[in-house]
């Protein structure tokens, strides 16, 4: 009597997965960890025609550190956070993944999933953007790399084409970085403001998450630090400019005006973290 259940497609190879994605496009709802999808299904916001599960695709696994870091799209948050190579050489990234939700969710949610969902309040996208990460994206026609800041385009929107899958992420060597998750309510809350900051080759990247439809990065403001010592005055200047540049959204975690105040404080603190790390 009930509506028929969605078809379950479970390819064993990447080629097979890409063929199915090419065939069905957005009619195939991709299942990675499935956490976000489950929330939508539980609330009956979604009635997919078919699922495309990537769980059995071996090419989407792997955490490789070899000068740069390559994370397979199907690696879980927990795997990233605990991988010795990531903890040692990409500690800021390990921390951003470790701060997501609970161990339960991190045991299930994947690297590819958090990017493809493009949820404004997720922690990893801001950090990956600050670290100049690039998403590796494949279709039957080939592979392309998309810088994180070009991958996430809006609220739950990405620049992925219907026939494409995220297969992994490349992250250049981390030099100094920090991630600050400011929660306005419970410790278990999603961020009211998330600030990722990274210094690499003397170049600064500050990315603010959870305050707008996509991670907020202002290269021209970060450019103020080029060739300069990141002292207290400059940190304040950059924080002030970020607070003015972002047009914050309002939700249960804070009004737009409040978020603006917190951005000013947390960006400055993030920059202080970076310089303290340098001093240490």
């Amino acid at each position, binding site marked *: 009597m009930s509506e028929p259940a969605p078809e379950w497609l479970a390819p064993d190879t990447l080629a097979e997965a890409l063929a199915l994605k090419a065939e069905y496009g957005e009619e195939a709802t991709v299942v990675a960890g499935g*956490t976000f999808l489950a929330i939508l299904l539980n609330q009956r916001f979604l009635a997919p025609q078919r*699922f495309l*599960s990537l769980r059995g695709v071996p090419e989407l696994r792997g955490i490789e550190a070899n000068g740069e870091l390559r994370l397979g799209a199907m690696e879980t948050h927990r795997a990233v956070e605990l991988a010795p190579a990531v903890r040692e050489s990409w500690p800021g990234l390990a921390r951003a993944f470790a701060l997501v939700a609970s161990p*339960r969710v991190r045991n299930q949610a994947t690297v590819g999933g958090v990017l493809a969902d493009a949820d404004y309040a997720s922690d990893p996208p801001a950090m990956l953007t600050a670290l100049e990460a690039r998403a590796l994206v494949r279709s039957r026609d080939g592979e392309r790399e998309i810088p994180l800041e070009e991958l996430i385009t809006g609220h739950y929107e990405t620049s992925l084409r219907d026939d494409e899958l995220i297969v992994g992420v490349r992250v250049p060597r981390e030099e100094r970085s920090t991630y600050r998750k400011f929660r306005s309510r419970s410790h*278990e809350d999603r961020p009211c403001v998330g600030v990722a900051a990274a210094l690499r080759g003397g170049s600064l990247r500050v990315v603010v998450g959870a305050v707008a439809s996509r991670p907020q990065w202002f290269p021209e403001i970060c450019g103020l630090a080029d060739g300069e010592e990141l002292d207290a005055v400059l940190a304040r200047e950059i924080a002030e400019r970020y607070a003015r540049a972002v047009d914050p959204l309002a939700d249960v975690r804070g009004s737009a005006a409040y978020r603006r105040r917190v951005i000013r404080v947390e960006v400055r603190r993030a920059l202080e973290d970076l310089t303290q790390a340098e001093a240490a």
Partner: protein
Amino acid sequence: MRIAFTANGKGVEVDARSDEMLLEVLRRDLGLTSVRATCGIGVCGACTALVDGEPISTCLLLAPLVEGRQVTTVEGLGGDDPVQRGFVEAHAFQCGYCTPGMILTAKRLLEESPRPSEEEIRLALAGNLCRCGCYVKIVDAVRGAAA
């Protein structure tokens, strides 16, 4: 669709819809009612099970994803597990609704870190909510189980 996995050490095969969660399958098809629906969004931990040894929110795990995996609920611990004993000895429950999820999460913590600090315990269990507010005694219970 047919889904085969191991539940509390026994091979099982269930017939479920592809869009159902493991929570529904465990409760309806296997009668494992220690996993409990509460938030439906993975934030409370009342539906926790161990999947391949790791705590998971069964309300967020699509049933087909459990194919071939090992699922453990507190029904599978028997009743005399050190963590269960720790909870009883510390009186670490009131209504008992969240208790199975707490126990499974604590069990995994103690495998990773046999002598956790209070801070470690609180962090590891932070994603399991208890509205009765038994948190202080749950920390005591986990410490007791570790001793």
